[in-house]
């Protein structure tokens, strides 16, 4: 068996414990959103690669959850919220695709070297997401590798592995069967293992 260095400076089970704490049944919707919003932003950011779009997606998901599902039992909030956020992310990706096509028709969207450039996106002047992150490089590597995954594999990986939803909750959030979740996740993990060789 290959010996592997622990990714954590302290307890190797720290991540799982933190996730358990983060996913403890919240006392109120406010508490649930407070303990979820930052991770939701990170997830949206990893999908969209754009801070403002990620903030919009999270804000919209929070609004929809509060508006339509605040009377649901607290245990159901997590899969509902992640499902709403997933759909919002997909909407934004589609909108961006349409926008890039329109810009292409209008002859824009390319710089002097012929590379694609954002046409109408405002400049992202806020502090970078990785500025304060100690493991910035590792996180950046993971974000790049995750971004390369097909959409459904990326969703399965993020919800099941990063967010720690169980298979049933992941299936509910993704709107597919539990078998599909397992298949997508298995493929995602093998892709990531190939792309994150330096983690070994």
């Amino acid at each position: 068996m290959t010996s592997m260095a622990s990714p954590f400076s302290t307890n190797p089970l720290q991540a799982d414990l933190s996730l358990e704490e983060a996913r403890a049944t919240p006392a109120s919707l406010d508490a649930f959103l407070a303990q979820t919003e930052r991770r939701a932003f990170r997830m949206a950011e990893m999908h969209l690669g754009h801070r403002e779009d990620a903030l919009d997606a999270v804000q919209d998901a929070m609004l929809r959850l509060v508006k339509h599902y605040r009377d649901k039992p607290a245990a159901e909030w997590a899969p509902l919220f992640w499902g709403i956020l997933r759909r919002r992310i997909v909407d934004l990706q589609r909108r961006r695709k349409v926008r890039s096509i329109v810009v292409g028709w209008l002859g824009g969207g390319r710089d002097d070297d012929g590379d694609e450039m954002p046409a109408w996106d405002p400049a992202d002047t806020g502090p970078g997401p990785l500025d304060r992150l100690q493991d910035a490089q590792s996180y950046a590597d993971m974000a790049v590798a995750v971004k390369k995954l097909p959409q459904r594999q990326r969703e399965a990986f993020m919800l099941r592995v990063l967010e720690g939803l169980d298979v049933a909750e992941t299936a509910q959030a993704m709107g597919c069967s539990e078998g599909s979740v397992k298949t997508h996740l298995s493929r995602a993990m093998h892709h990531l293992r190939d792309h994150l060789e330096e983690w070994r």
Partner: protein
Amino acid sequence: MNAPKKDPELQYLEQRARALYLKAGAQLDAHTAGRLRAARREALQAAQAKEHAHPVRMLLPAGAFAVLALAVTMLWLPQQHGAPITSASSTSAASPEADSYLPPDAESADPKLYQNLDFYGWLASNDGQSSGTTTSQ
């Protein structure tokens, strides 16, 4: 039955990815964290405002229904009050002998009846007296 043993390499990958993700969420810059907090408050306040607006919104259709009910009642009641009058008049018109002293409708009565009211009065009193004398005789 034992669950299939997970590939340790994949298990390590999962743990590390999750740790980085949680750390990235926890170490979010203050600016973004503030905006997320504001977005959360906004979402919760919007829901509360909607709850408070709910009774007001319920009052609108209730008020409209009350106005409609009042209008229907106002249209219906005169008809209900008018109906007995019409039926009474028709009854009295059907049997004029029932009360020959009062014509059912002044306008439809013979105008000559009203021309010599004093005479009819004298005649009635005289008639009573003469009938009294006749009985006494």
